[in-house]
C-alpha cells in the first residue's frame, strides 16, 4: 500500500472524525493496525483536534463544580448508569473515539465470522451425515432388493421343480461324476412325451475362468450338443429349461468346454443313462 497516498486522500481525518461508513471504518482500522506510519499520522490528527478543543475552552459558570459533584453523588454508580445509558446507546454516527468502535466492530465481525463458520460447519457436518445416512440407506435398500430378488428366483425355481415333480411323465436322470476323486452330480428332468428337459448343476463346481459347462444328449451313440449352461447355475439349485426339444436319447452328459462350447465334448464331467 502507498501509505503516503493513503494519508493524502484524507481518509484518516474522516476516520478520526467518525465520518466514514462502518465498512470503510473497519478497513481503515485494519490498515492502521498494520501500518505504524498511519497510526503516527492519526496521532497527529488527534493532537490537532485536541488542541482545537483546548482553544475553544469556555469556563463554565461559577457554582457548576459543586452542582455537578452533587449530581454525581446522587447518581451513584447504578442510577448514574441508568441516566446516562440512553445517551450512550443513542450515540449517533459520529464516533471519533476512533479505536474503541473499530475494536468493537472487529469483535462483532469476528464473532459473526466464527459464529457463521461454526454454523456452516454444523450444517455441513449435518448435511454430510444426512448424505452418509442416505448412502447407507440406499445400500441397505439395494441389498434388501437383491435379497428379495434372490428369494423370488429361488421360489420360482422351487415352483418349477414342484410342477415338474407333479408331471407324471417326467423322468429324472441323475448324472454322476466321470472324474475319479471328484464327487460331482447333475440332474436332468426329461419329459420324453413333451420333449421338455430341465437341468440343474447343483452338485457341480463353478467352472474355471474362460470355461463353461456344455450339455449333451447321446443319440445313437453320438453326443449332440444341447447348449451351454450359464456359469451362475453351478453349485446352486437353479434349474433351467433346455431350449432344445428332446424326444430321443440314451444318455445325458455335461462336459467342461471353452467358453461358447465345442462341436464334440472335450472333458466329460458327469454322465447319466436314461
Amino acid at each position, binding site marked *: 500500500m502507498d501509505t503516503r497516498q493513503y494519508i493524502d486522500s484524507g481518509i484518516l481525518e474522516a476516520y478520526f*472524525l467518525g465520518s466514514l461508513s462502518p465498512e470503510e471504518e473497519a478497513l481503515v482500522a485494519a490498515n492502521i493496525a498494520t501500518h505504524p506510519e498511519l497510526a503516527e499520522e492519526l496521532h497527529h490528527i488527534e493532537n490537532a483536534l485536541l488542541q482545537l478543543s483546548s482553544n475553544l475552552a469556555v469556563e463554565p459558570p461559577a457554582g457548576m463544580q459543586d452542582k455537578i459533584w452533587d449530581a454525581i453523588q446522587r447518581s451513584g454508580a447504578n442510577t448514574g448508569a441508568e441516566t446516562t445509558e440512553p445517551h450512550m446507546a443513542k450515540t449517533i454516527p459520529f464516533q471519533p473515539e476512533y479505536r474503541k468502535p473499530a475494536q468493537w466492530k472487529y469483535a462483532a465481525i469476528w464473532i459473526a465470522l466464527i459464529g457463521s463458520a461454526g454454523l456452516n460447519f454444523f450444517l455441513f457436518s449435518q448435511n454430510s451425515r444426512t448424505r452418509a445416512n442416505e448412502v447407507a440407506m440406499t445400500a441397505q435398500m439395494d441389498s434388501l432388493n437383491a435379497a428379495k430378488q434372490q428369494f423370488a428366483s429361488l421360489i420360482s425355481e422351487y415352483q418349477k421343480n414342484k410342477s415338474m415333480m407333479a408331471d407324471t411323465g417326467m423322468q429324472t436322470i441323475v448324472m454322476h461324476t466321470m472324474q475319479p476323486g471328484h464327487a460331482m452330480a447333475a440332474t436332468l428332468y426329461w419329459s420324453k412325451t413333451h420333449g421338455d428337459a430341465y437341468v440343474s448343476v447343483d452338485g457341480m463346481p463353478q467352472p474355471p475362468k474362460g470355461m463353461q459347462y456344455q450339455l449333451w444328449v447321446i443319440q445313437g451313440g453320438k453326443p449332440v450338443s444341447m447348449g451351454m449352461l450359464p456359469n451362475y447355475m453351478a453349485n446352486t439349485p437353479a434349474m433351467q429349461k433346455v431350449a432344445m426339444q428332446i424326444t430321443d436319447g440314451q444318455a445325458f452328459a455335461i462336459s467342461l468346454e471353452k467358453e461358447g462350447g465345442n462341436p464334440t465334448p472335450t472333458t466329460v464331467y458327469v454322465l447319466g443313462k436314461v
Partner: protein
Amino acid sequence: MPPITATYTEEELVLLLQQQSRDAFNYLYKQYAAVLYGTIKNVIHDEHTGQDVLQEVFVKIWNNIAQYNPHKGRIYTWMINIARNAAIDKLRSKGEIMKGKIQTGEDAVNILAGGRKSEQVTDTIGLRKMVDGLRPEYSAIITLAYFKGYTMDEISKELGIPLGTVKTRMRNAIHQLREIFNN
C-alpha cells in the same frame, strides 16, 4: 482538604478517577471542565441546556471510567468525545439539528460570511476567531464534522460538494490546523 496543584499524566488521572474521591473530581473538573464545556457550547448555544449537558457528561465520565481502556485511545479524546456525543445527542433529540442545517453551499457561504442564523454564525466565527488564519471553507468543514457530527455524505449534501472533495478538504483543513498550532 489541601488543594490539588499537581498535574497528572493520563495514566495517573485514570487511577485517580478510579478512586472516585472528591479530590479526583476536583482535579478532573479543574483540568477539563472548560474544554468540555467549550466543546458542548460549540454544539449547543443555549446556556442552560449546555450546563445540563456538562453535568450529564461529568456524571457519565465518572460512572463509566471503568470502561475506559487506555489502549484504545487517550482519555482526553475519550472525554471530549463523550461531551461532543452528549451535546449532539441533545441537539438531535430536540430536533434542533435540522433547524441548524444549511440547505445549500451558497447558504453555507452566506452564513460563513456572517448572514442568517445566529447559531451557525457563532460556530464558524467562533472557530475562526479561536483559530486565527483558518480558511473559511476549512472552518466550515471542521465545524460540521467535528462539532456537529455530520457524516461525509451529509457534509457533501450540505455544502454541495462531491464526496471526494469533502475528504481532501477535511485533510487540508486539519493539516492547516496542525500548521497553525505548530507555529
